[in-house]
């Protein structure tokens, strides 16, 4: 199956700092999503981005499908950005299943 690696595994930032999270995957995909898991466990959809670049406020993401990686940028981080960020990839046929990476644990401090 597809392998998904995320880096870094843990990240501590001061409020206001910028960061880049990376997701590498081992095979061609046509579905890629970024999620934020908040302290209560809820998975929040950030981006559906199988290719290209998208921006939503302080967050943006870029996927280079031909090179099998995606990047999530967080600018001007806030304490509410804390939590775990997951990348998930898949092939839209065969049930549209997702394979998740192990996540990046982000802590934003004052």
């Amino acid at each position: 199956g597809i392998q998904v690696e995320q880096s870094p595994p843990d990240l501590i930032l001061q409020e206001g700092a910028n960061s880049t999270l990376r997701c590498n995957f081992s095979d061609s995909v046509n579905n890629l999503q970024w999620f934020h898991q908040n302290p209560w466990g809820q998975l929040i959809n950030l981006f559906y981005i199988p290719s290209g670049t998208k921006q939503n406020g302080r967050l943006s993401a870029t996927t280079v499908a031909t090179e099998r990686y995606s990047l999530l940028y967080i600018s001007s981080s806030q304490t509410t950005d804390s939590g775990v960020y997951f990348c998930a990839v898949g092939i839209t046929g065969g049930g549209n299943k997702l394979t998740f990476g192990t996540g990046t644990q982000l802590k934003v401090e004052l």
Partner: protein
Amino acid sequence: SQTIHQWPATLVQPVGSPLSLECTVEGTSNPNLYWYRQAAGRGLQLLFYSVGIGQISSEVPQNLSASRPQDRQFILSSKKLLLSDSGFYLCAWSYRPYEQYFGPGTRLTVT
């Protein structure tokens, strides 16, 4: 708009007891439905998925089973729980072939 519900939110069950977790989706028809488990706060593992009523695909052999008795209802069951079944169970839906959306989850502790 679409919403997804899971219940119960938390559950503590003794080893050997049965399990039934329920997931329902509102505001869409004929969605794909999924059950995931998350252990130790990291790494979601796909357990089951369904592309239609009565159609269940299992991803991991285990002590659990799933059923889809109605179009927007997905149930996760066990006849006898094991300690290793503890975890955070998440239901998700997608309107193929697009992005998945997750419910609030059920925290299961088997004692």
